[in-house]
């Protein structure tokens, strides 16, 4: 078999992949040994593959890994809260118990428990009209200026109540004080309902 330059160019990618049959490979090898043009195409193609295949060619924005880790940690906690089927109804039930006044949320936080999910904390005492910000793609809402806001260029301002209704969850960093206050004070039933439907909304979002 003899191949010309055009045939070589057409097959050069397959040749480099090791995807040409023995006959064609031999013919191309012969061609490369005599045709400097095609040899140059071959060398260049290999060089391209070698360079771009190098890990160093992948550049990620500063802090990418840290932000991914944080978001996954939030996801992991919320999964803990909703993983088993019973937790879906247990969250509102526990919340009702909380309203009834017996249970102190702080106590239940000391033991590992699925309800520890930050996303499902019924004890929130966030003022409903407080101004908060959310950012595109992230699931939590923040006090404006919080330093863990992801994607700062795309933020939107709304009230805490609206944010909760839209399915956002309080940032564990900047909303911490509200989440902790909640352990010692009763919460409004409205927020509890919203927070538990919030969990369902997240489930829906996840199963999309």
């Amino acid at each position: 078999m003899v191949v010309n330059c055009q045939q070589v160019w057409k097959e050069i990618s397959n040749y480099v992949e090791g995807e040409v049959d023995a006959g064609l490979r031999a013919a191309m090898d012969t061609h490369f040994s005599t045709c400097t043009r095609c040899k140059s195409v071959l060398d260049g193609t290999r060089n391209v593959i070698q360079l771009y295949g190098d890990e160093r060619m992948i550049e990620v924005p500063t802090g990418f890994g840290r932000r991914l880790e944080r978001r996954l940690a939030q996801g992991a906690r919320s999964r803990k809260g909703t993983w088993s089927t019973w937790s879906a109804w247990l969250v509102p039930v526990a919340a009702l118990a909380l309203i009834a006044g017996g249970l102190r949320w702080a106590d239940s936080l000391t033991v590992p428990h699925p309800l520890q999910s930050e996303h499902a904390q019924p004890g929130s005492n966030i003022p409903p009209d407080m101004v908060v910000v959310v950012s595109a793609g992230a699931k939590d809402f923040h006090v404006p200026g919080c330093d863990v806001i992801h994607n700062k260029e795309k933020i939107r301002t709304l009230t805490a109540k609206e944010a909760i209704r839209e399915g956002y969850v309080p940032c564990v960093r900047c909303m911490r004080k509200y989440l902790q206050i909640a352990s010692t004070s009763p919460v409004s039933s409205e927020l509890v309902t919203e927070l538990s439907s919030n969990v369902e909304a997240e489930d829906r979002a996840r199963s999309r």
Partner: protein
Amino acid sequence: MAELNVVLSNPEQGTTREQELIAQVQRGQAELFYELVRPYERRVYAAALAILRNESDAEDAAQEAMLKALANIRQFRAEARFSTWLIQITVNEALMRRRRERTRMTEAIDDHRDDEGEYTPRDFADWREIPSEALERKEVRQKLAEALASLDRKYREVFVLRDMEQLNIQETAEALGISVASVKTRLLRARLMLRDLLAGGWEQGWFSRLPFEKGTKPW
């Protein structure tokens, strides 16, 4: 050639720690998931970026894709490569976002134009190799990234998934929802175009001031 095939065939041998982590996460230890994906986070990001071409969109898509991977970890089967599975989820997420964006922007779609016409290499001078060590230099990486960014989307995507993300041809086809034949045609063209761009780069002095420039080749 032999060494290239070795690298591509199974870069993840000896992944017992990985298998262990997968099993733990599947049993519910979701907090270990980041440790599991960390070795691939750069590739996941690059896959999203190839499709979305915007850093913050790519980052967000990558994060969302990893959350989806976590949510679906029990569907992962040990026969598959974990990295490939992650990248496929990421590509899906990114394509979905782009489609959504498209519908909103009613941007021109060049998908259906097929790859008719063959690409003829332009530069036949003796190939001046750019050694891997040159990648230590930011300006070299940047020029290579610019060359890649100048390719049409359909060529760029295939090239990134195959040659940068190391998916195989079949996996690339599946991830992008195109035929194996299209992957091959586009890949050929992408590689040849990049080769010409890099050859032109020498002429335009992209690689000047570098230690491996003409006459001072250290390799």
